[in-house]
C-alpha cells in the first residue's frame, strides 16, 4: 500500500495540475478579452468568453485554495518555510487575485463595458501566474535561507537567477497557449466561425514560445539543480510523450480540424511535463529543508484528510458533471440559445 503522505502529495499534485489548466483558461481568456477590446475585435469573441467564464470563475479560485489548504494540511512544515519566505510575493499574489476576482464580478454582473475593469482583469491574468510561479522556483532550493530560527528569502539571488525568469516566462506563455487552444475548441462547438478563426490564430501564435520557454527553463534547471534535472532525464519517456502530444496538438490546430482532440492533446502535453517535473523533484517539497517524509502530518490527520477528500469528491464530482452538462457541453447553451 502507498503511504498516506505519498497519496497526499499525488492528489495535491493532481489538483495543482487541475488548477494549472482551468486557471490558465481563465487567465488567458481575461487577457484575450482585453486585447480584443484594444484591437477592436471584441465583438467577435467577448460574448463567447463571458459565456464560458460566467458560470465557472469561482470554481477556478477554489482549485487554488484547495491545493494550498491541502499542502499545509498534509505538510505543515511547508506552511512555515514557504509562509515565512513568501510573505511579500505571496501577498502580492493575494492582492492580484483579489483585484481580478472582484473586478471580474464588477465588470460582468455590474457595469458592463468598463475598460478600466477589463484592463485590471486582463493584466492580472498574466501577473498572477508570474507571481505564483515564484513558489516553484523557490522549491528548487538556493533562494530560501535559514539563519538561526529565521527563515528569509534571498531576493537578490531570486531576481538575478535566469531560472526564475525562465519559469515566469514559461508560466505566462503557457497560460496564453492553453487558453487559446481551449477557446478555439469552445468556439468551434459554438459554431462561431469568426471567433474560431481569431482564437485559432492566437493558439498557433503562442505554441512556439511555449515550447521554447519550456526548453530554456529545462536547460537552466540543469545548471541550478543537478539532482532534479537528472531525475527528470531518467523520466525521459514522459518528456518525449509531452513533446509528442504537443506536435499532435499543433498539427490538428494547423490543419483546422478536431479541435476537441487538439485541446485534449494540449492537456496531456502539460500533464506529462508537469508530472515529470513533480516526480523528478521527489522526495523534496523544498530543497533541501522539507521532504515529503520529514514534514508529513500525523497519521491520524493524514487519514482524516484522505477520508474527507474522498467524501468531498463523492459530493463534488456529480456536481461538476452537472455544471459541465448544463454549460460546457450543452450545445444550445454554448451557442447562446439558452
Amino acid at each position, binding site marked *: 500500500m502507498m503511504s498516506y503522505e505519498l497519496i497526499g502529495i499525488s492528489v495535491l499534485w493532481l489538483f495543482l495540475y487541475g488548477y494549472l489548466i482551468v486557471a490558465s483558461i481563465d487567465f488567458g481568456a481575461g487577457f484575450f478579452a482585453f486585447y480584443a477590446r484594444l484591437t477592436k475585435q471584441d465583438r467577435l469573441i467577448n460574448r463567447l468568453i463571458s459565456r464560458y467564464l460566467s458560470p465557472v470563475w469561482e470554481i477556478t479560485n477554489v482549485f487554488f485554495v484547495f491545493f494550498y489548504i491541502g499542502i499545509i494540511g498534509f505538510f505543515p512544515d511547508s506552511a512555515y518555510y514557504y509562509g515565512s519566505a513568501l*510573505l511579500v510575493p*505571496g*501577498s502580492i499574489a493575494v492582492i492580484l487575485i*483579489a483585484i481580478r476576482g472582484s473586478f471580474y464580478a464588477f465588470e460582468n454582473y455590474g*457595469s458592463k463595458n468598463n475598460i478600466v475593469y477589463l484592463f485590471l482583469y486582463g493584466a492580472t491574468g498574466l501577473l498572477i501566474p508570474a507571481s505564483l510561479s515564484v513558489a516553484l522556483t523557490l522549491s528548487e532550493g538556493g533562494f530560501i535561507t535559514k539563519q538561526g530560527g529565521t527563515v528569509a528569502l534571498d531576493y537578490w539571488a531570486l531576481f538575478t537567477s535566469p531560472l526564475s525568469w525562465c519559469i515566469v516566462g514559461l508560466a505566462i506563455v503557457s497560460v496564453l497557449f492553453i487558453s487559446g487552444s481551449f477557446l478555439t475548441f469552445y468556439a468551434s462547438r459554438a459554431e462561431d466561425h469568426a471567433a474560431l478563426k481569431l482564437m485559432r490564430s492566437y493558439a498557433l501564435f503562442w505554441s512556439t514560445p511555449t515550447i521554447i520557454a519550456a526548453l530554456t527553463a529545462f536547460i537552466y534547471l540543469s545548471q541550478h539543480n543537478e539532482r532534479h534535472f537528472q531525475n527528470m532525464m531518467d523520466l525521459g519517456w514522459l518528456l518525449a510523450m509531452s513533446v509528442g502530444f504537443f506536435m499532435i496538438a499543433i498539427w490538428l490546430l494547423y490543419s483546422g480540424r478536431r479541435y476537441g482532440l487538439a485541446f485534449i492533446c494540449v492537456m496531456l502535453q502539460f500533464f506529462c511535463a508537469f508530472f515529470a517535473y513533480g516526480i523528478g523533484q521527489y522526495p523534496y517539497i523544498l530543497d533541501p529543508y522539507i521532504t515529503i517524509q520529514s514534514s508529513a*502530518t500525523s497519521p491520524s*490527520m493524514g487519514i482524516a484528510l484522505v477520508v474527507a477528500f474522498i467524501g468531498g469528491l463523492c*459530493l463534488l464530482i456529480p456536481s461538476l458533471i452537472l455544471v459541465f452538462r*448544463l454549460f460546457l457541453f450543452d450545445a444550445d447553451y454554448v451557442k447562446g440559445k439558452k
Partner: protein
Amino acid sequence: MSIDTVLWSKLVTGMTLGFHAIFATLGVGVPLMIAIAEFIGIRKKNPHYILMAKRWSRGFVISVAVGVVTGTAISLQLALVWPHFMKLAGNVIALPLFMEVFAFFFEAIFLGIYLYTWERFKNPYIHWLLTIPVVTGAGMSAVFITTVNGFMNQPAGFAMEAGQFTAVDPVQAMLNTATFSKVFHVLSSAYMTGAALLSGIAAFTMLKKGVSAYHKKALKLMMAVVLLFGLLNTLAGDVSAKFLAEHQPEKLAAAEWHFETESGADLVLLGWLNAEHEIIGALHLPKFLSFLAFGDFNAKVTGLEEFPTDERPPLLVHYLFDLMAGIGFMLLAISLLYFLFVFWKKRNELNKWMLRVIALGAPLAFLGVELGWFYAEIGRQPWIIRGYMRVEEAATTSPSVKILFFLFLLLYIVLGIVCVLVLRRLFNNNPAEAEMEKWVKPARNETAEKGGHA
C-alpha cells in the same frame, strides 16, 4: 523579535478579518433569504417574491466575489503572517480548513448553476431546489471555520510533547467545547443580519420613493425573519455567556469588568474605569451576572483576579461586548415593534419613523457582527491558542508586514468603494417596479389584485 512586527501582523489580520466579516456574513445570511423568497413566490404564484429572489441574487453574487477574494486573502495570511501558528496547529486544524473549502466549492458550483438557469426548468421547484446546496454549503463553510476559531479558544484533540502537538484527533479538535455555542451564535447572527440588511433596504427605498407593493412585501417577509432569528440569536448569546462562564471565565470577566470572584455578581453596563480600576458611572443590575452566567442569581462567578496579570484580556472588550449585546436586543425590539404595528390596526407600520428605524437597523446589524468578532478575538488575547501559544510567538519575523498593511488597506478601500458603486448603479438604474413591468406584462392585472390583498 520586535514588538512592532507583531503589532503590524495583528493589524493586517484584524483589518482583513474585519473586512471579510462583512462579506462572509452576507454570504451566509443572504442565500437563505433568497431561498425563502423564491419558495414563497412559487407557492403563492406571486411574481413579486420571485423578483425579490432574482434581484437579491444579482446583488449577492457581487458581494460573494468580494467575500471569495477576501476569504482567499485571510486563508493565505494564516501561513504568510502567522507561520509559527500554522506550523504548530496546522496538523490539528487542517481538517476543518480542508472541509471548509469543499463546502465552499459545493456552494460556488450550485450558485453558478442557480444564477444561469432561471428560465431553464419547466417545474419551478427544480430551480428552487438549487438553493438548498447553496444555503447548506454557505452554512457549512461557516460551521467549519468557526470550529477553527473554537479550537483557538478551547484547544482539544491533541497531546503536547516537546513543543509539538502529538496524538492528534482532528475530529475531537473540531468538537471542542467552544464549537457549539460559537456555531450557533455565528449562524443565528448571520441570518438575522442578512434579513436586517434586506428589510433595511426595503425601508430605505420606501422612505425615498414611497410605498410600493414589492417593497412592502419584502419588508414584511424580512422583518419576520429578523424576529425569528433575533429570538434565536438572543438564545445563542445566552448559551455563549454560559459557555464562557464555565470554560473561559477570563473572557467573560473581562467583558463584564468582573474583577473579584463572588456570588450574586452584578451585571455592569457601560461606565468607565478610573486610575485605581474602580468602575464609575456604570449601571449595575444586581445579581444579573450570576444569572447570565449560570442561570442562578446566587451562583459564584470567577473574577479576573484569579488570572496572572499577563494572561488577562484587554479591558476594552467591555464596550465591545455591551454594544454588541445592545444592538442584538435593539434589532429584536425593532422587529417586535413592527409586528405590533402590523397587528394593531390603528397604527401604520409603514410610518416614517418606523421605516427610519428599520433602515438604521441594517448598518447596526453589521456593526453588531463586527463588535462580536472583535470581542471574540481581542477577548482571547494574549493567546492565539489559549494556554499553548501566545500571539507574539506566532507572528512572522519579516518587517515587510508593515508595508503590506498599507497595501492591503488600499486594496480594501478600493474594493469597498467600487463594490458599493457597482451595486448602486446596478439597482438605481433598474428599480424593482420598472423591472416588474418589463418582466410580467401579461400577468400584471392578476399581480395588482394580489398586491392589494397582501
